[in-house]
């Protein structure tokens, strides 16, 4: 039986997308590989979720439960413990093969697909940490899962490399569980996490944050267990400065050095990739270069807040429903270019065939700017100019474009101007 829409991944993104599509009376199937819905929210037992969406503060599992209840109420079909092992498209039909213990290999087809597969953590391999490769060096998210879901502490003397939000959250979490958390080192001269997390997770517990520092040596004992790390201050070119070495005796080094969208399922589809987001390019409807293939949440771009994942994915769900309802001739669209001091911008195209879709753009800056002006221009014409105070890469910024302001030809440029 051909479905209208299949949503891959039942976390914060997939739940919101499936709900939005179902509310428009589409036949939706949600596929989740874990044994429960909610995704990474299940291991985020701290609060801070829901302020944007519900104007109320929840823990991760509570926030997930709000969506799961709604999905149940709407009688959305979903599969658990089921992994999508291939995704292809023939003519107008998407073909998915899944694998599971209960059902073996199954084939599903649909008119549209929404990818909400989240992201994975950068590992030690993706950066160079000199020294041994012992047991005890682990990503912050893995440690979080071991502690919050399984009930095991990976170590008692902890140092954290990278000030991403998961690292900050885990600094507090390990401290509260009785570990001594000796510090957090951040390569950049500013934190990569939300300010509220710096305050609530580090400052409140006197955990030092070493900005412009990195780990320059990892030492293990003869049994390949981590025993000591060295951190050093770095210069503007990120090279370690001699004489600034500090040593810490630790049994655990948590890594919170970034997240990467997980889009490996798209390997066999002709999607256009974006080296800036490390995901794929979309238009304002969250549609990729493959008609009917939508993507949202952390598999599109890594968000700071789960609330924003939900909101973006909800839009993707509406647009996918709209795609089912309305024949349109997809255009490549007007490119949106990341200009000065912009790390990336989404959507990467404005497609006039999606003229009814609101254009909500997200971007991150490349560096910390105290006083900046956002300039969005096309063909020398200013579409948006607004002042932004205290722009940092850690916090995603958004702006909205009006389709009536946009010319039918000519790239749109997004720049940040540094104001004195």
């Amino acid at each position, binding site marked *: 039986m051909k479905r209208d829409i299949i949503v891959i991944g039942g976390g914060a993104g997939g739940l919101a997308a499936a709900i939005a599509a179902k509310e428009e009376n589409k036949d939706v199937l949600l596929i989740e590989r874990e044994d429960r819905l909610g995704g990474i929210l299940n291991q985020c037992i701290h609060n801070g979720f829901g302020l944007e969406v519900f104007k109320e503060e929840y823990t991760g599992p509570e926030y997930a439960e709000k969506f799961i209840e709604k999905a149940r109420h709407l009688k959305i079909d979903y599969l658990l413990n089921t992994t999508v092992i291939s995704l292809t498209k023939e003519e107008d039909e998407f073909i998915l093969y899944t694998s599971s*213990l209960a059902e073996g*290999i199954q084939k599903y087809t649909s008119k549209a697909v929404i990818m909400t597969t989240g992201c994975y953590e950068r590992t030690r391999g993706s950066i160079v940490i000199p020294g041994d490769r012992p047991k005890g060096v682990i990503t912050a998210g893995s440690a979080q899962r071991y502690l919050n879901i399984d009930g*095991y*502490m*990976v170590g008692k003397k902890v140092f954290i490399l990278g000030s991403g939000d998961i690292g900050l959250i885990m600094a507090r979490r390990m401290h509260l569980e009785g570990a001594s958390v000796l510090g957090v080192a951040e390569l950049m001269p500013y934190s990569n996490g939300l300010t509220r997390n710096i305050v609530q997770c580090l400052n409140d517990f006197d955990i030092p944050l070493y900005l412009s520092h990195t780990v320059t040596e990892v030492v293990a004992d003869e049994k390949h267990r981590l025993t000591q790390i060295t951190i050093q201050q770095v210069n503007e070119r990120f090279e370690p400065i001699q004489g600034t070495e500090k040593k810490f005796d630790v*049994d655990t080094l948590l890594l919170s050095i970034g997240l990467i969208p997980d889009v*490996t399922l798209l390997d066999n589809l002709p999607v256009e990739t974006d080296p800036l987001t490390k995901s794929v390019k979309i238009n304002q409807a969250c549609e990729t270069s493959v008609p009917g293939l939508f993507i949202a949440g952390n598999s599109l771009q890594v968000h700071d807040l789960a609330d924003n994942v939900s909101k973006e994915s909800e839009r993707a769900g509406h647009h996918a429903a709209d795609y089912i309802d309305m024949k349109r001739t997809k255009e490549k669209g007007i490119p949106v270019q990341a200009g000065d001091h912009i790390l990336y911008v989404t959507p990467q195209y404005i497609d006039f065939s999606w003229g009814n879709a609101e254009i909500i753009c997200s971007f991150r800056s490349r560096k910390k700017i105290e006083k900046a002006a956002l300039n969005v221009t096309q063909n020398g014409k200013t579409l948006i100019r607004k002042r932004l105070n205290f722009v940092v890469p850690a916090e995603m910024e958004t702006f909205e474009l009006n389709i009536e302001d946009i010319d039918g030809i000519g790239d749109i440029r997004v720049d940040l101007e540094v104001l004195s």
Partner: protein
Amino acid sequence: MYDFVIIGAGVIGTNIARELSRYQTKAIVLEKENDVANVQSLANSAIIHAGHNPEPGSLKARLNIWGNELYDELEKELDIPLLRSGAYVVAHNESEEKQLEHYLQISLQNKVPGAKIISAEEARITEPNLALSITKVLTLPTTKVTYPWEVAFACMENAMKNGVEFRKNALVTKLEQKDDHYLVTINNKDRIETKNIINATGVATDDIAALLDSSVEFKITPRKGEYFVLDKHMKGFVNHVLYPLPTEAGKGVLLTPQVHGEILVGPNSVFVEDKYRTDVSFEGLAYVKANAGLLAEGVPFHKIIRSFAGIRSTSNYHDFYIQESKEHKGFFHLGGIESPGLSAAPAIAKYLLSDVIGIDSLYPKNETFDPFRKKQPEFHSLSLAEKQHLIEAYPTYGNIICKCEQITEKEIVDAIHAPLGSHTIKGIKKRTRAGAGLCQGGYCEEKVMKLIARETGVSPLSIAYDSDDSSLFEEETKVEE
């Protein structure tokens, strides 16, 4: 009383064990690590070289060429993975082209099949990313790539099937000569008796030799090599092993396509004091990056998933040292087995037994020797129909545990319970590739841990990453009062 104690379960020790199992002997392999192939055999270039640089007439040259041929047989009998990539040695200018000519002559003297020099244009037909500065290449069609630990697993499993014993976590701490036999002390407590000892301990060969011999003819001066691994999505970036011209320090920084599509970049070559420290350095990895650029245009360094270092057991003897001790009859050393050690391994085993030990005149053939060993199916490499077929027979093939590599519950459970099974995260990774992909175990390590706990009936608290002392967890938090 054993006839043979083989010390060391790397590719050399396990190949010897398998060759020995063709004869009616009582033999045991002792390994100090918690798994076979855990030191040198785990971290090297994984190449079965064609033989373009060993000195003609040397043992290295002879055993390299012979070993390369024997791998075809090993593939058929033991089901080991082989990528028949072939290799290009590259030259950038006239002076390098002269050296290339020199290595062609060496290749011809060593009887390397199919070696010839071709133009860069011709090479680019199959290797489009070849560095633009390259002018000519020496093509070596018999170069192959494998996973060295798979070779060791296959040989050890087959040797065990044919009667050889295996003991891991068994560090040899003392060797004593009695009237007509030796006493081997393990971990300072257990003792076993044996008529012969085969010392295949890689970087430790001189140390183990010194437990009995008053003077040892070779000294190991270990060299460290650092590598990057590029994600398997880069498959096809290079199709051949790409070598620079060899130097005193070795074969240089290479680009090596792997069986499952990853690309290995490295190694450098640094003499080190400590034989067992395999740390990586900023300098070493920067050197590797800079030199890889001389082989191919635009090496995708943003696709690095891992960096590691390995140790080579270079010796001052300059050739393989495969000899009986001058002082102790029945004590055999395999010293200085650096590159092309992996390439030569099956030939080293045959050479040791026939030319050094003279096994045929000492022990009768094992008439029941079964040369075959079948690897468990790799789910991810099968067609949908084959996958479905397997799942019908064994439903746990349907449960994907490692999503990056599509490794299933059945494969992991098999790896836990196999005769040469493992109960560690690293051991399961070596056997199944669970955790070897893009997220490096970020997703599946927890699931593998739970499967090991379930299958062995132990608490997660005692599950180790590698050695028995490397348990994953310090304590449990959700304990019922």
